């Protein structure tokens, strides 16, 4: 291509230079347009999300039962909240999210082995939600809870992420 242009004696003519500029301008324009389209798509998706987040924010505290329904060491799934209520050996309570921190599968509690094992990629967690086997890298999320007159109240608005176990994650009567 280049060679044939040279032989016709139009090499380095301002014509091609101007054409290159036009082409470049054209490319920039296309890139801008695509970027803008993406941005519009993103903001449309975002408006849809805002609607749902508002709807979700309405439910906060749910009652998960009374302290004397639980024995120390017991782990019980609370279906209406999508979490596990763990009664620890010292009688304190911890509300653990059912969602595996690896990629979001629901982890079942294995009573014999006293651990959670994820069916999707095999991550295992102990009864406080700490990682026992990869590929998960974070402990299970928890929900803040408080105990009033023996009633356990769990705030299921947002699961809280954590890197380790700490005493403020639990509730005592």
């Amino acid at each position: 291509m280049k060679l044939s242009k040279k032989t016709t004696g139009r090499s380095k003519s301002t014509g091609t230079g101007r054409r290159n500029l036009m082409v470049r301008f054209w490319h920039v324009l296309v890139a801008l347009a695509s970027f803008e389209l993406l941005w519009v798509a993103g903001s449309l998706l975002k408006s849809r999300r805002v609607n749902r987040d508002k709807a979700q924010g309405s439910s906060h505290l749910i009652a998960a039962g009374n302290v004397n329904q639980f024995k120390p060491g017991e782990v019980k799934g609370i279906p209406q909240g999508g979490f596990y209520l763990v009664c620890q050996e010292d009688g304190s309570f911890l509300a653990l999210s059912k969602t595996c921190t690896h990629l979001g599968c629901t982890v079942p509690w294995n009573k014999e082995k006293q651990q959670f094992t994820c069916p999707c990629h095999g991550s295992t967690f102990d009864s406080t939600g700490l990682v026992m086997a990869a590929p998960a890298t974070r402990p299970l999320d928890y929900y803040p809870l408080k105990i009033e007159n023996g009633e356990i109240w769990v705030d299921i608005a947002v699961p809280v992420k954590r890197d380790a176990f700490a005493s403020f994650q639990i509730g005592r009567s």
Partner: protein
Amino acid sequence: MAKSTENRSLTFSSFVFHLHPPKVHAETLRFTLSFGLGGMAATLVVLLLVTGLLQLLSYSPQIDQAYLSIQQMYQPGGLGGFIRNCHYWAGNLLVVITFFHFLRVFLTTAFTGPRRYNWIVGLALFLLVVFANFTGYLMPWDQLAYWAVTIFTSMLSYIPVIGSELMTLLRGGQEVGSETLATFYAIHTGIIPVLMVVLLLYHFWMVRKAGGLIKQENTRGVAPARIATHPHLVAREVAVVCLILSIILLFSAVIDAPLGAEANPGQSPNPAKAAWYFMGLQELLLHLYPSFAICVVPLLVLFFFIRLPFGVKETPAKGVWFGGRKGALNAAISGIAGTGLTFFTVLIDDTFLIRKGSSQLSWLWRGLVPTIGCCLILVLLYFILVRIRKCSAGEAQIGVVSCFLCGAASLTVIGIWLRGAEMALVW
């Protein structure tokens, strides 16, 4: 447009000649050059568009109705089930055929020179095909669909910086729900088909612009023979179209597309497996630190294949499979090595390393080190092929790609057939 009756009768052939030149090189009609794979893929895309449009009439994209609407397609006496079967099997076959088309383009060295931009368009098409299949997978809202989409959207959250924002955008909130189905429905039935058709027309135009399919290097100095597109090429194309259509229609008449139990957010199936074309990636997820399996490795692979036509100066013989016998032997040896190494590594990791739990340095020992290790193995293979087997750079490249693809295929096989409950290895 058509002014006379004669003109009107030409409409079909003038359409054909918009996509084809009037004459083509005789040697490119050889079935064993292309195996008609591109044509098969194009046929499947058209079939998918037609059956997809028809399904818009019977499917309801709401989470409380989607599953039911699919079940109702299978009412006795109706054609809905047959249409869904065609759409399902054509989609799955398209992944296979597109992959083989990609292989043939690579192995006959038809991706360099003027064809290199078409190679990139092709890669984009391949990604679109996989993503189309994947978004379609969610539509029935059964257990498979629900958990596949949960896992996939969570995977996005490991992308640095934009990840979690991207995840909530696609899900339409923190959890998978009705907005997620609505978004995926829009992507599957609107955005992807439009992009696909546009890219395909561009793809065909670029094939024509490059002067048709790849030819062998002309050594004899005689001008290569050219013959009329109609009937020689058109007849062959019609044959391929009929072949692939009859296969799909017959298969769909006999075998129903699978439908699992209705989605249940409270319980993941055990084992929860992705669609078969993602099982290689899922297997990788078991072994690698998440952000490496999800982000680093796929980007490296994509970058490698995009760069491919721009790297090597000296290519293997064009239009010849593997560039000749030596290339074929190289590819076989490298492929066997890739397969063996993959099975060995998976076995070692599963028996000794995986149960060690996670530590602060997981990203290093389960991420960076194995990734660099794999790259080094491929580089080593390249130098072995060049130095010891005296290959040209292009021939060695075929070996490296063969090793990589066989490794990826092994991961897929392990994931599909050798993983049982809780993803433990089973024989």
